[in-house]
């Protein structure tokens, strides 16, 4: 009888402990999205017509990137050589030009292809850049007729 009472008490203690202590089990699921780096050009001039008289022509470009830093903006002119010489060309000849560029926070004479790196502060910063081109010498009566051209390029790398 004594043993039974003890067993019953022991069982009650076991049951009681099971009822009084709540337990928790947990599951967790990470959720996430990666927004890729991107840069967007807009308002890029379709063409720049350089006046024959040596006056200045302007082409514009606008871009912005969705990152604070870590992208580069390179500017190049197809014709520019290692001596900084640039010209509008055709099969019959060439017309030297001078080029000035505003890009990011820089403005400079373009005498070589440039690469500018964005430090911090450029998250969605709208870069309103432009390129100014003019003939170094106005066209004369003996300048060979024809279409002279070059290509100005802006490349964003991120």
């Amino acid at each position, binding site marked *: 009888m004594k043993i039974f009472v003890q067993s019953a008490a022991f069982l009650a203690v076991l049951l009681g402990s099971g009822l009084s202590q709540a337990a*928790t089990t947990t*599951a*967790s699921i990470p*959720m996430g999205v990666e*927004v*890729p780096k*991107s840069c967007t050009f807009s308002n890029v001039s379709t063409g720049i017509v350089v006046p024959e008289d040596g006056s200045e022509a302007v082409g514009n470009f606008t871009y912005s990137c969705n990152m604070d830093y870590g992208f580069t903006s390179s500017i190049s002119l197809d014709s520019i050589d290692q001596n900084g010489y640039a010209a509008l060309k055709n099969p019959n000849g060439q017309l030297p030009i001078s080029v000035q560029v505003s890009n990011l926070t820089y403005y400079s004479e373009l005498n070589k292809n440039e690469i500018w790196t964005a430090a911090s502060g450029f998250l969605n910063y709208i870069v309103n850049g432009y390129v100014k081109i003019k003939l170094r010498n106005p066209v004369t009566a003996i300048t060979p007729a024809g279409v002279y051209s070059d290509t100005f390029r802006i490349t964003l790398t991120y």
Partner: protein
Amino acid sequence: MKFANILLMLILLQFSGNIYSANQTSSVDVVTTIPVSCQFSNVSPQIIVSENGSVSSANFTLNCNKNFELQFSSKSLKDGDQTTSVKAANGTKLNTAVKVNFQGNTFELDRVKQISVLDPSSSELGTISINLASPVHATTPAGVYQDVLYLDATF
């Protein structure tokens, strides 16, 4: 004389044991205690949230052998945000809409929610859906945005 009586009684007892059949029962209580338990299984390892605002989903299964309470929450809500969101390391947030479908009911996670399940089946399947409140656009800062969904079963 007294010794003779005792001897006779012993002999009679011996005989009676041989003459009459009897059942002798001995009982041993066999007790097993099945512990109360809840267990998650088949929990999706992660949810890749879609950039364009479409719904992504994940699943979990919960097995409980008694009544339980299930709490849905997220890291963003526990951090004190008013809505669920995924966050970048620099703190930039993209609000999300998170829904949990459990036992045929859909619970929107607009705050920490807790439900009581009084009659659990052996296996309860839950589905989680999440989408960005607004699709990612060109000016959304690049980066990895994260949140964590927590499921706590108390039993």
